[in-house]
């Protein structure tokens, strides 16, 4: 989610079915590890992936992501077939 865009912490929390303390803790760990960058704007904090730091993982992450998308597509198509039969 923060790979190509910068997002406020609250927006990140809203996009996932995860509680605020969990999101906050994850962002803190990612920030301390140097994988995510934080920027302040007024009272809000914005986050984005540090793509230079994540470069070694990029191909792995993209592969994992596209595999999951493929699996999701297959499941959705199977569901669609089941529905059209009934």
């Amino acid at each position, binding site marked *: 989610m923060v790979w190509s865009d910068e997002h406020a*912490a*609250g927006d990140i*929390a809203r996009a996932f079915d*995860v*509680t*605020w*303390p*969990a999101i*906050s803790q994850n962002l*803190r760990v990612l920030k301390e590890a140097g994988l995510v960058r934080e920027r302040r704007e007024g009272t809000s904090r914005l986050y984005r992936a540090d793509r230079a730091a994540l470069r070694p993982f990029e191909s792995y992450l993209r592969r994992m992501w596209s595999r999951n998308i493929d699996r999701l597509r297959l499941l959705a198509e199977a569901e669609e077939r089941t529905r059209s039969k009934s």
Partner: protein
Amino acid sequence: MGARASLDPRRGGAFRIDVDGVHIAGGEYRAVDPPRRIVMSWGWEGSESVPPGSTTVEITLEPDGDGTLLRLRHSGLPSADERNSHRDGWSLYTGRLAAVIS
């Protein structure tokens, strides 16, 4: 917010909110004045920076047009990081409360 909670909302009563099985908030009610004001101590079990009882949350409610204005003040947080994190968290959950009510 939270998977499970035990609340004893009277002065001196304790509360414990299990947010997700890992993050558990706890504290004690310092003042309960329905339907206008509530003050409680606040912290997180297992947290070094914000242990249970170490900070104070004050919530006041007042009529505002055809709605209610909720003010929440969380004081005693030890660092800018904790203040920011808690501000974002309260904003998220009070926003959900407003959405549920309206």
